[in-house]
């Protein structure tokens, strides 16, 4: 083969390679294949991508008797329960309950960590042991210690009372911290709270609260469920998605209706948006703020956001009575909807049902 022949062949081969590569080797083409049938199941509730573990999935069940004046503030990223305490002159304190792993027997660094937090020097091991007091926590012997911030003109005095108990390889920390005077005043209530705690580590996911003797008005309400408060004739049925409770009301001939309760962490758009959404559900056109003001009934003289609306579509005879109840940092949406013949007789019972949660 002479050189020019070789050159033209080589160029031809390379040109072909260019064309093949330029077409991208079919990467963007649809693929067809057969596979064994797969079942569609929800993946386990795991953390964000890249394996970040979620803290707030299954947690031990905790119950307690709520001391007077304490306000539940729900669970946090690490804590199972939080409470807010208020005192005179705007003084604030918080209580948290947090289980942590692998800290049994590490009282000395724990105490010193808290001391560091309020700006105190570290203590020697013997001194730490002397400062630990015996306390009963959830029926078990635990330890408690206090740290208080040194006098500082720029910051209000701060005090932390920490109680801890080790169960297996989990250490439970109960921490009362905040304004020094308020913390000192609340310490007896805190000790009583520690005694009242009941712990079931069987893996249930919700925390539960026993009713205190006199619940304060701002206390967070549990989602209403079938109970002695449920009006007669209402039948509890499994709630649908996004609902926390659902009841069927007594039928009047062929007329039917139901009550649903949903809870959200915010007002989900405000009263007008909610009312207009409800109006749409029974075929009514949206209204403005002026009309809204005329049709709402306020259920709580202390809170103008607690409202009730009653709407009926005269053409379809569909009626919707809705109530919005913001409470404890959550918004409860009550809805009685159905045929007017069935809904109207239940209005009084429905209103009382909502008011019972105030």
């Amino acid at each position, binding site marked *: 083969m002479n050189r020019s022949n070789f050159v*033209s062949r080589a160029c031809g081969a390379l040109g072909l390679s260019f064309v093949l590569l330029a077409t991208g080797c079919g990467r963007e083409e649809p693929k*067809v*294949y057969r*596979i*064994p049938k797969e079942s569609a199941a929800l993946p386990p509730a795991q*953390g964000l991508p890249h394996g*970040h573990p*979620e803290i707030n999935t299954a947690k031990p069940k905790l119950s307690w008797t709520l001391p007077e004046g304490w306000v539940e503030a729900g669970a946090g990223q690490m804590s199972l329960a939080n409470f807010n305490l208020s005192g005179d002159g705007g003084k604030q304190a918080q209580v948290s309950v947090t289980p942590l792993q692998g800290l049994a027997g590490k009282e000395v660094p724990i105490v010193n960590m808290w001391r560091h937090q309020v700006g105190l020097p570290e203590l020697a091991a013997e001194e730490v042991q002397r400062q630990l007091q015996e306390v009963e926590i959830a029926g078990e012997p635990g330890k408690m210690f206090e740290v208080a911030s040194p006098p500082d003109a720029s910051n209000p005095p701060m005090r932390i009372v920490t109680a801890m108990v080790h169960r297996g390889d989990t250490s439970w920390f109960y921490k009362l911290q905040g304004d020094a005077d308020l913390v000192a005043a609340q310490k007896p209530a805190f000790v009583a709270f520690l005694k009242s705690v009941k712990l079931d580590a069987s893996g249930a996911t919700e925390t539960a609260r026993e009713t205190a003797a006199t619940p304060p008005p701002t206390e967070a309400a549990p989602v209403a469920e079938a109970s002695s408060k449920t009006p007669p004739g209402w039948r509890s049925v499994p709630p649908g998605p996004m609902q926390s409770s659902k009841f069927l009301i007594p039928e009047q001939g062929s007329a039917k209706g139901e009550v649903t309760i949903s809870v959200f962490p915010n007002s989900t758009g405000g009263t007008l948006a909610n009312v207009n959404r409800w109006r749409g559900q029974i075929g009514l056109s949206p209204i403005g703020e002026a009309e809204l003001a005329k049709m709402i009934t306020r259920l709580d003289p202390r809170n103008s956001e607690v409202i009730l609306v009653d709407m009926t579509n005269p053409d379809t005879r569909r009626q919707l009575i809705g109530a919005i109840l913001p409470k404890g940092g959550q918004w409860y*949406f009550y809805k009685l909807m159905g045929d007017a013949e069935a809904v109207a007789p239940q209005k009084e019972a429905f209103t009382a049902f909502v008011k019972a949660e105030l």
Partner: protein
Amino acid sequence: MLDRLWKVLTSLRLTAVLLALSILLVFVGTVAQADEGLYTAQERYFKQWWVFGISFFGHRLPIPLPGGYLLGMALLVNLLAAHIQRFQWTWKKTGIHLAHAGIILLLVGQLVTDLFSRETQLHFYEGETKNYSESGREYELAFISDVDEELAEVVAVPVASLTAGGEVRHERLPFRVRVKKVWRNSEPSFRAPAQEHGPPLTTNGIAPHFDFRPVPEAKTMDEKSIPTALIEIVGANGSLGDWVVSGWAGDDHLVSAIRSSYGRQMRSAQMGDAIARRLTQPQTVSAGGRDYSFTLRPVRAYKPFSLTLLKATHTTYPGRPDIPKDFRSRVRLQNPETGENRELEIYMNTPLRYGGLTFYQYQMAAGEMARQAGATPSSTLQVVRNPAWLTPYAGCLIVAAGLTFQFMYHLVGFLSQRRRVA
């Protein structure tokens, strides 16, 4: 004319120009990563024949540049042509030939790797069996229909090939897919029952429950773009409706993240479950006498064998629960074609090489943290298919052998000459 071209192809001047352009391209492509993101820059500057317009410190300059493919191919051609032109079989030049052959192998190997290698991930929970791995970044629109009691047929259309206003037709699908909108990256938000919303993208499937909005494409390595598209499925007798398909609904990782996130926000795991179920509810159309479910999911690569995660072990250093010491997956490999059924361990520096694939231990959610969180332990394996994985080793060895030979040849010649003089 041909001789002139040949002269250019074999010239050292061309080599110098190409190397200079390569340096320029690497510089410009690296700077552009700040504006365009790592993966876009790689695609636009290095995996292209030409680059039209460059990003330079926040400025868009209308400058054309030869792309990575063109420069690599031109260097290869230049090297080959020079070799053909100057090739002489003498002992004196054997080392040079070997070194050049090694470089050619490196260039070809890199091209083959770029074109044919594939990295996917296999994420599974303890007790779960999987026979497929998934792409970390690429998504596909998969239409799935039952063939018989046991088998399903999948027609998977790469999302990269979807364009707004475009249409997808396939001989195995009895309908056309009109792409009305396609967002390379998107964010979902739950249409809470009482939230103030505009109208949903469509009233079918997941759209009444979730809003999606476009967001800028991910730019860094630890972010990824999650595509969403609004499609219309058109059968033989007209439209079968508009549907929203989103990577947020078809990617298990993202669904579990949404489930946890809403569960936390609403302080109710049940609420999180309910929202996740709405997101993953099957979307189906009937056409040509069959039901077709469709989902936008990470591109899947199915294997003729399966792996079951038996145990995920995450150990840490004593006293330092935040520093991982070992990630280790105990898996069962089952291959119905060969009858294999064996247990093995995959851990750092000890991957599983099987079926032309390499399974590396990649990520893990196990151990104390996962146990404390009540999470099901899981493991992620990086699955690499690279038919050219040996070429860098072979290329470097050949280059080293060539240079050693050349050095020794000259050394021996020099020593014998000196002996003769002495």
